[in-house]
């Protein structure tokens, strides 16, 4: 009896277990078997009214839903950009007909578009291009995200913006640029070069497969190069620099191209901090307190006229340029030594890349009557670029040469090292305090 009872209990447990197992399997099977298809059938297609849009442009998406059933269907239409809903609306599609729905939204960046209704989905891409205005005033369309750029002009700005990853080619001149050579994390000479804006290997350029080329224009030869590049279907952003404002414009333009607008503003603030320091101390100088300063180029008789950034630097630094009064509309007039003697400049500043030295001027018998030579106020700055943030250091250097009394507390090397660290991540490769 006891045995029998025990046997009964065992049987009951077994039966219960089997029942539970069957139930679990049934639930699993129920869950795993696909739901019966909806009784209605829809076909979905969609297209944009343009192959691509400019940033901020209104994109119009036409969705066509075809109802293949004999009855009207109302379903929820959902349009998503990268998973973000931009449209959600119930749509009634009459029996056996096609309903067109137009959806508009602002195209601010490229996106994957997913349209779904009643279990049907349709995917397409929203193509968005950026439009930048270059120094020609031309609106250039470039991809939203530039990943392959060939930079033939002002490459160091691209590095300073932190966009070097997007550079696939540089000007051959970059190989001899002291800043590019000093950079720690890149080896500039291993970056491919299709040449320069004056002589370009078009086939190598095409081989680099650039999305955009940044180059110089505004001379006959460089314009022809630009024309050829554009004829090959490669967008060209043309720059040309002649005054201080152009540097700001360049930094902002490059910032926009590489989606580094914030960093561009940061660089501009860095430049302005140092320039403001110079301006603060020189702003209130009277005309008599401003010494006469000339800036000489590749030859000692080639001076800076009223145009160009070096004239601006002299003025900022609290000097006045006698050549600017005489040649207000020229960049680099060549004058006779007699003219320079007549000007009696109090200081002479020599272009960093010039092939002659301070001593060449100081020891030249023809220059002996000039006050700058008598006082030993002849200076030459390092071979740095004027078209980069370090122009602020150049302004400080000019100012301390022209007004040593106002800037005696400032060690330019420290300022330069700090600025270079912030801009390029390296200390200044140049000596600023001889």
């Amino acid at each position, binding site marked *: 009896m006891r045995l029998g009872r025990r046997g009964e209990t065992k049987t009951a447990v077994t039966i219960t277990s089997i029942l539970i197992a069957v139930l679990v399997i049934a639930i699993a099977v129920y869950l795993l078997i696909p739901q019966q298809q909806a009784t209605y059938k829809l076909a979905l297609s969609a297209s944009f009214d343009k192959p691509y849009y400019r940033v901020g442009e209104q994109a119009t998406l036409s969705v066509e839903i075809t109802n293949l059933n004999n009855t009207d269907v109302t379903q929820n239409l959902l349009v998503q950009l990268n998973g973000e809903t931009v449209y959600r609306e119930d749509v009634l599609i009459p029996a056996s007909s096609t309903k067109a729905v137009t959806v508009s939204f602002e195209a601010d960046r490229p996106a994957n578009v997913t349209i779904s209704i009643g279990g049907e989905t349709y995917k397409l891409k929203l193509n968005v291009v950026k439009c930048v205005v270059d120094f020609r005033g031309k609106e250039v369309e470039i991809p939203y995200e530039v990943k392959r750029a060939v930079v033939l002009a002002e490459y160091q700005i691209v590095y300073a913006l932190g966009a070097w990853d997007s550079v696939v080619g540089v000007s*051959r001149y970059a190989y001899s640029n002291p800043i590019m050579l000093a950079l720690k994390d890149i080896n500039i000479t291993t970056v*491919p*070069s*299709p*040449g*320069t804006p*004056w*002589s*370009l*290997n*078009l*086939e*190598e350029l*095409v*081989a680099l*497969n650039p999305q955009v080329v940044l180059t*110089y224009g*505004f*001379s*006959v*030869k*460089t314009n*022809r*190069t630009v024309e*050829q590049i554009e*004829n*090959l*279907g490669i967008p060209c952003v043309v720059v040309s620099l002649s005054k201080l404002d152009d540097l700001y414009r360049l930094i902002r333009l490059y910032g926009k191209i590489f989606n580094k607008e914030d960093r561009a503003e940061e660089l501009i603030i860095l430049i302005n901090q140092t320039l403001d320091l110079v301006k603060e101390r020189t702003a209130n100088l009277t005309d008599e307190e401003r010494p006469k300063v000339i800036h000489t180029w590749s030859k000692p008789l080639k001076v800076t006229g009223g145009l160009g950034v070096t004239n601006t630097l002299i003025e900022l630094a609290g000097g006045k340029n006698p050549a600017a009064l005489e040649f207000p509309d020229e*960049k*680099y007039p*060549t004058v006779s030594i007699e003219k320079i003697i007549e000007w009696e400049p109090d200081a002479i500043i020599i272009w960093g890349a010039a092939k002659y030295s301070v001593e060449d001027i100081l020891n030249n018998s023809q220059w002996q009557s000039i006050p700058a030579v008598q006082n030993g106020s002849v200076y030459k700055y390092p071979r740095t670029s004027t078209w980069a943030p370090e122009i602020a250091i150049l302004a400080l250097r000019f100012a301390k040469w022209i007004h040593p009394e106002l800037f005696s507390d400032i060690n330019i090397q420290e300022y330069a090292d700090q600025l270079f660290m912030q801009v390029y991540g390296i200390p200044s490769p140049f000596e600023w305090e001889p």
Partner: protein
Amino acid sequence: MGALKSKILVLALLPIPAFFFSLLIGRYEIPPVTVFQIFISKIFNPMMHSPWPQAYEIVVWEIRLPRILLALLVGAALSVSGTSLQGLFRNPLVSPYILGLSWGASFGVALSLLVPVPFSAQVMAFLFGLLAVFLAYSIAKVRGETPVVSLVLAGVIVSAFFTALQYIAKFFLEPHELQGLVYWMMGGLYLANWEDVSVTFAPIIIGIILLSLMSWRLNVLSMGDYEAKMLGLNTEVNKIVIISLATVIAAVSVSVVGTIGWVGLIVPHLIRMAIGPDHRKLIPLSATVGATFLLIADDLARSLTSYELPVGILTTLSGVPFFVYLLKKTKGRSWG
């Protein structure tokens, strides 16, 4: 004679293998088979939908082919121009630039960079190149005759004059424009496009054909003015025609690709050493060999480095040692 014939045949056909070889090489790697497929489909079926990447087609059809054709045209033009003038002047040191063409042309370019002119730099180069030669010819003309020595001297004078003018222009040029002028003077085919080919094609081909037709007159003229007159040739008319044709084809070349040196000096010399002084063979062969020479030099210019080497410097650098070798080998015999 058989040896000479086969030599002539080889020299005449040189551009064909050079053409196909050049089509294959370049900085952009394209499988050789595809290059030929593109080439053939573009010629026979330009509307065909291409199975290869668009970049391939651009490289082969828009970059390589016009450049190759331009190199062939310019190489032929410069050599034929050099050959004709060497024959006319009876002097192996004569090049297409002897009458001041290159200096006139580069002044034309400098001027177009400096002041606004109604013509493009290329047209200015062409016009001033012709002007320089015309000036030289006018200076050399004494009592209705133009002795060879006066022509050479007049060329020197005109070159000096335009050199001076060009330096004045250079002095006032912006650095960016100046750099452009320097590259132009070095010569290069890197901006070659179909427009350049279509502009240069007709004048160069017609010029070469006309000079070939005049080649027996050149044979007579190269014996000397006196002998030519004895044989009943109107030396002045023939001189003017030959100088004009030689100048126009060289000026067309210079205006499009800049001053490429030595092609017009070394190639004529080379052919003369190889096959003798008969201009009926010299002119056509210097066209084919000159075309090949410049084409190969330009292949090197565009594919040795990732950037462009100036082809004018390559032609000069490769020409000089070869010239020295030939001169030593033949002991200058080709000019009797």
